[in-house]
């Protein structure tokens, strides 16, 4: 430790002590000398933030295209006539809609390309699954001219040159093809520069989406895009049959390092994960899009079986007061809130984005290990992501307000 300063700092200016005394008057003078020009309330950086990440986007359905039985593509244009927010091929938007008394959200990958957003529209492609409460609503209600609201583009299921291999094997099933359709278009129009080999699983030939479009993209991209259709319930020439296995991946993958991107229903993901393990790829070369809420929670590893089939009491505290609602053990806390008509924040519905972060005040929830996406400190301080937390006792939570419709 150095001793007390025994040298006197030599004067810097002529009248240092006066300079000290003048600190305040000098600052007053400087501030007074400032201009009265209107302050810029929106510098370009902040303006750009608003354009790239709008709090909400309101669209009008311009066109509805039947892609296959039970599958429709909706072409969306901005209600205000502007361009939708730019995005990176592979990203999704969270659609918000009022269904009955409930405000619901659903994440949908954009099936349009970033270039098409420049041209003034997005498309999302929706499959009406047998159990899909929301998709049934969409099929019934989304008609030309109807309005709908979405979030800004979200998610990180996109190609990153510094991180990913030059060749991406896209593995998808059903409507999981949508982000790959966007990626393929971006590769074909030159917005993205990598090789994309899509292994696309469908039940039957008639279920294949964007078949003609993909064929065209293969041509236009000069070999950078390749699509291999894999049929599980039909045998046909020119198609692979069965499921997407390690052997099938090896058959189409190049020798050099390649990245695997997966997007599909949980059941496909569970199967494909086991196959990919056989390839012994480093984790950095395997990326997956989120598949939404876990179905059949009682089958998840570690689930406390005695909680199953029960209906618990969920006390919801918010700035506006307190409510007690039912929460069924087989549905997430978020779904319980939505069923009760309580507006709750949510986006990815897969435990990852953290937008639904809420304080668990009392009670216990089950969170499947492989979708635990919470921050370490949130675990420490008792926060949950209601979208992937399942009640296993009566609960009390503090719920933040949601974006209003």
């Amino acid at each position, binding site marked *: 430790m*150095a*001793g*007390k*300063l025994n*040298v006197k*700092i030599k004067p*810097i200016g002529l009248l*240092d*002590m006066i*300079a*000290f005394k003048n*600190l*305040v008057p*000098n*600052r007053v003078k*400087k*501030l007074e*000398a*400032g*201009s*009265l020009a*209107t*302050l810029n*309330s929106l*510098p*370009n*950086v*902040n303006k*750009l*933030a608003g*354009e*790239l*990440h709008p709090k909400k986007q309101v669209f009008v359905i311009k066109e509805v295209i039947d892609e296959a039985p039970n599958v429709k593509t909706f072409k969306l244009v901005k209600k205000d006539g502007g361009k939708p927010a*730019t995005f*990176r091929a592979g990203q999704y938007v969270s659609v918000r809609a009022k269904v009955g008394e409930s405000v619901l959200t659903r994440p949908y990958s954009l099936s349009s390309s970033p270039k098409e957003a*420049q041209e003034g529209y997005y498309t999302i492609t929706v499959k009406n699954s047998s159990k899909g409460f929301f998709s049934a609503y969409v099929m019934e209600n989304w008609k030309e001219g109807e309005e709908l609201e979405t979030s800004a583009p979200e998610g*990180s299921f996109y190609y990153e*040159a*510094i*991180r990913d291999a030059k060749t991406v094997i896209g593995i998808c099933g059903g409507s999981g093809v949508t982000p790959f359709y966007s990626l393929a278009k971006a590769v074909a129009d030159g917005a993205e520069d990598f090789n994309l080999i899509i292994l696309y699983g469908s039940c039957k030939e008639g279920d294949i989406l964007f078949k003609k479009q993909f064929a065209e993209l293969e041509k236009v991209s000069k070999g950078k895009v390749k699509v291999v259709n894999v049929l599980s319930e039909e045998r046909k020439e020119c198609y692979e049959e069965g499921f997407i296995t390690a052997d099938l991946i090896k058959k189409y993958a190049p020798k050099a390092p390649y990245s695997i991107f997966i997007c599909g229903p949980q059941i496909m993901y569970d199967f494909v994960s086991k196959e990919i393990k056989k390839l012994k790829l480093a*984790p*950095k070369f395997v990326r997956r899009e989120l598949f939404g809420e876990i179905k059949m929670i009682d089958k998840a590893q570690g689930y406390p079986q005695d909680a199953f089939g029960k209906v618990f009491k969920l006390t919801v505290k918010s*700035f*506006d007061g307190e409510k007690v609602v039912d929460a069924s053990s087989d549905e997430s806390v978020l779904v319980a809130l939505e069923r009760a008509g309580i507006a709750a*924040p949510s986006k990815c519905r897969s435990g990852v984005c*953290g*937008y639904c*972060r809420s*304080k668990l005040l009392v009670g216990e929830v089950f969170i499947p290990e492989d979708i635990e*996406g*919470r*921050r*370490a*400190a*949130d675990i*420490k*301080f008792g926060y949950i992501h209601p979208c992937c937390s399942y009640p296993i006792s009566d609960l009390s939570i503090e719920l*933040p*307000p949601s*974006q209003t419709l």
Partner: protein
Amino acid sequence: MSQNIKNYDVVVIGAGNGGLTAAAVAAKSGLKTLLIEQHNLPGGFATSFVRGRFEFEPSLHELCDHGPSDNLGGVGNLFKNLGLDVEWLPIPDAYRMIITGKGEEMDIVMPFGIKEYIDKMEYYVPGSRAKTEEFIALCQEILDAIGYIAASKGVTDKKVMMKQFPNFLRTAPYSIEQVENAMKIPQKVKDILNAYWCYLGIPVTRCNFTVFAAMLLKYLIHGAYIPKHRSHEISSALEAKIREFKGEILFNTKVKKILVEDNKVIGVITDKGERINTAHIISNATAHTVYSSMIEPACAVPPIAIKSANARRVGPGGYVVYLGLNKTAEELGLKDYSYFIYHSTDTEKLYDSMKRRGNDIIQATVCLNVANPGCSPEGTSIMSFTTLFAENAWDDVTAENYVKEKNKIAYRIVDDFEKSTGIKIKDSIEEFEVASPVTFANYCNAYNGSIYGYEPDSWDSLLPRMMMMEQDVLIKGLRFSGGFAFRLHGYSSSYASGETVALLTVKDIKEGK
């Protein structure tokens, strides 16, 4: 929704470091406190985000002024008094600095601890001991003087000041360079001492000496610390305390308007159209944001508020590349926690390069695992590379070319790091994310993406701001916390500002102001 208008003793706008602390201290002091935050998380820049297997630290490199439990600094004591539940980890060394500029190449590692720092300086610059000791002793006097001023709540005894802190009085009006030159500090010693300049964000020719001296010495005396679970742990711990003290927090809600009547605060209006009554506001939103768009009616903005904002310069915007790597720090050869990599020792030149998105990019880089080995899964590590952009550097960027422009800088920074250290990291990148000034603007509503506050030129530095705290209250009941406020920027300063402002608000209320 309840139709009753709600009333609070104090409304805090923004849950950044200053706002969180202000709300915790106000609530602890018994005020009916409401903290309103536009985002869904507490902390502002002090947060974390998850990508794949990694949880990243967005902004904190090293917390100054905390210290170990047996040698707590100001912030350490503040957190202790609040009873914050945070696990702290020490940073091993102060910094490694690499100068890549032709003819002035340097690669040095400086330790914490006054003796260790002086010894190491002597090792790099033989014969420098006496000068470095003198410099550090001056810094000590500055720190003691600030402590005295703070303890005397601004009412200082002139005689004590003259007798005990003559060099403080003498140096306070000057820049780092002016004081170093007056002391005839050798050039290389200056270059090594000045490494921390980027934490203040303006060249040593303009940056006030007092604030620099206090920061340097606090680092040397107390070392630097980080929370185990990224800075989100500090923010969540503060959030927990606010709740414990019966304060309320309203996330996902933006204060649209501050209602003013007869030059007095009377309430706020939120983006959900709700009116909340209060006579006291602590704004973590900057004066620029508040006076440009939040005061209702707009004619209630005092002209001096506009003049003051225009007279000051908003500090640089932040830019950070985050990498999740699939090799350990040891495997990659990363031995140091903190790397300052500059293309020159001339800080004016460095600052000038911050005004463009060019090829010369300064970086302050961190390998988190060196101080926090458990921060990522086994076999992996986390790095973050920070740079700064001043003024209009991002003005020509559009929504269409944003990703391209953003990534170009990231690639450049990672390249620069590899070249200047000889450490290869590119092949090990498993997760890659970038936060640009636009990102900070998006999540935190940061004005022009600034992660600092108003620039600390000598005329607008710590002392004159502290001495003018009451004069700077332009609308009755409206005080500011955070990096743009009177304690200047940086994590520890923002926490300290929150505490002081909350206590002043308590005093205002007691005195019926």
